[in-house]
């Protein structure tokens, strides 16, 4: 029998103008438009070039440590008493998170384009560390913009970036968190158009970044798909990931988009709760608008001013979400749940105690929704969770939240 083509080809996006349905696009100042076009052309040429792919694969294998394992979390599974939980172990990558998959792809692209200076924004510092790492490896100067609030709560990562030779610029405008760091990085890019490559860390920003970051992160989903087929002989019932800007989630989701039997579940940070104003859930608590180069769901006030996001996790503390998630939400292909600070803290501890894995606070948001999803799918079910990063960077924050001193 012929395989029937899926009714919707969810992988056909973005279109040529960088749109995922109503979302995405290139909402940047004219000064940056030629650069954004140049970047898109360079990206297309690179991924069509077997030499580029070969080089990237080489570094992913020998420097990043790919493929990452898909690990059956036996004790978490038993604890939740439902579906089997598999963890995609991105925290085992060099630098401790999925962020480096994207950084490796983009730094090779930047060098191919002849760029000699790298800038990045960071929230938790994981993307900053990953960027600083690849810049050290390839000998490029690196400036990382980081909100002053985040500099304070992610001190170990600031020190790591400094050790790696990067300059960390503390951003004090606006709410002094990730969105402001991104504003400042864009201002730097507008000012230094000739030599500078902006290495965006999530599946956000103007086209082609959402597509490009997805492409470099989709290695996770491709591996996970193969690995689960190998161990279980079938596809999972659900793939779960936390969502800040959305890179670890879209990288996992994308290779499963046309597997319509696989539920795709993103978890947004709801901070103090969705009944308060202190959250970072763009889809669950926002509405469409334009920020940082794309149209997407945003947390904003009734007249279109962006409001401060709040999450205990610096990497999720962002008022927007990548445009492809906005699209997948609207068409109903993916579901977006929420998780509070408190629930994330509990999941953080549970994963450490039962599996001997200290997850990032970002990742803990995905783990926190497992009890319900496991119960819903039942013992026959299979879930793959993106263990997007390790939590060493968060121990100060967690200790403080638990009222302990270290």
């Amino acid at each position, binding site marked *: 029998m012929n395989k029937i083509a899926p009714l919707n080809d969810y992988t056909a996006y973005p279109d040529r103008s960088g749109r995922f349905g109503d979302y995405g696009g290139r909402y940047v100042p004219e000064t940056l438009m030629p650069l954004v076009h140049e970047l898109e052309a360079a990206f297309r040429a690179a991924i069509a070039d077997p030499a580029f792919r070969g080089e990237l694969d080489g570094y992913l294998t020998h420097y990043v440590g790919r493929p990452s394992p898909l690990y059956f979390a036996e004790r978490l599974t038993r604890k939740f008493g439902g579906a089997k939980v598999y963890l995609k172990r991105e925290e085992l990558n060099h630098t401790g998170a999925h962020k480096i998959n994207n950084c490796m792809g983009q730094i090779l692209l930047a060098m191919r384009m002849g760029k000699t200076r790298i800038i990045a924004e960071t929230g938790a510092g994981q993307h900053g560390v990953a960027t600083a790492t690849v810049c050290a490896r390839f000998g490029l100067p690196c400036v990382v913009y980081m909100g002053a609030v985040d500099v304070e709560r992610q001190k170990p990562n600031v020190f790591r970036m400094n050790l790696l030779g990067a300059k960390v610029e503390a951003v004090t405008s606006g709410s002094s968190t990730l969105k402001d760091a991104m*504003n400042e990085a864009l201002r730097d890019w507008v000012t230094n158009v000739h030599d500078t490559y902006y290495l965006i860390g999530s599946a956000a920003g103007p086209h082609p970044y959402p597509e490009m970051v997805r492409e470099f992160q989709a290695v996770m989903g491709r591996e996970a798909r193969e690995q689960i087929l190998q161990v279980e002989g079938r596809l999972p019932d659900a793939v779960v990931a936390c969502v800040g800007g959305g890179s670890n989630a879209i990288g996992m989701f994308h290779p499963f988009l046309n597997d319509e039997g696989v539920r795709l579940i993103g978890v947004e940070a709801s901070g103090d709760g969705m009944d308060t104003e202190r959250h970072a859930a763009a889809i669950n608590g926002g509405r469409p608008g334009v920020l940082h180069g794309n149209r997407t769901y945003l947390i904003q006030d009734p007249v279109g001013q962006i409001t401060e996001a709040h999450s205990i996790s610096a990497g999720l503390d962002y008022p927007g979400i990548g445009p492809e998630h906005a699209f997948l939400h609207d068409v109903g292909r993916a579901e977006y749940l929420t998780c509070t600070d408190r629930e994330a803290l509990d999941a953080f501890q549970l994963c450490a105690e039962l599996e001997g894995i200290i997850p990032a606070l970002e990742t803990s948001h995905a783990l926190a929704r497992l009890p319900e999803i496991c119960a819903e799918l039942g013992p026959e079910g299979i879930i793959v969770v993106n263990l997007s990063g390790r939590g060493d960077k968060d121990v100060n924050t967690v200790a403080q939240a638990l009222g302990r001193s270290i």
Partner: protein
Amino acid sequence: MSRARIDARFARLRAEGRAGFVTYIMAGDPDPETALAILEGLPAAGADLIEVGFPFSDPLAEGPPIQRAAQRALGRGMTLQKTLDLVAAFRRKDAETPVILMGYANPLETPGYVAFARAAAEAGVDGLIVVDIPPEEADPLADALDAEDLSLIRLATPTTDDRRLPVVVRRTSGFVYYVSVAGVTGVKEADAGAVAPNVERVRAASGLPVAVGFGVRTEERAAEVARIADAVVVGSALVDEVADALAANEDVTGRVLTKVAALAKSVRTARTPSRGA
């Protein structure tokens, strides 16, 4: 009416043989009442066209002066609607000076482009500059503005090459704003020598007057640019006067208008020697 107001103003400037002076102020900065007083004083102080910024929380092409102006305005409750009210109040006393709103896309998304364009036309706005809506994304906005006969003013920049220029000037009217430096507002200084050929290029491609801004702070620079461009835009330097007056506890309106008068004088007289007028 609206496009006509901009066209009439540039026709008059051409007849007078001088460059126009375009002043930028932020709506609601430092507070709504003072902003209206400044706005009402601008034409007499020498402003030929007026840009009114509507504040946005995340102005990614602005340097510190205008970022802070936006924060001051937002802190005083300024909104897009109140910006339109401000323009409407100004229009009751001045029917001739073109007013162009300048800002970012997101505040326009809430009312939607069509409703916004209607309200803007009613308030007496003549044109719109949206920093983060490049030509590739502009068609829906251009349609809405066309329906109300409002100009969509485009930005051309040092990175806009000859191949791209036709894309940039498509569906534009009124004038083209040439951003004289690659950078944010209020930081780098324009180099008139480097700007001159670009002004020619943009004028030729668009058939429209070219206003130059982003790097003009001093009377000297304003005069230089006035010799080569159809209009000179000053923003951050005026917004800085607001901040300085606040810090020194001085009369904000007086200080801004004094600065405007000084800059206007150097713009108005810049071409005089060579023209022998």
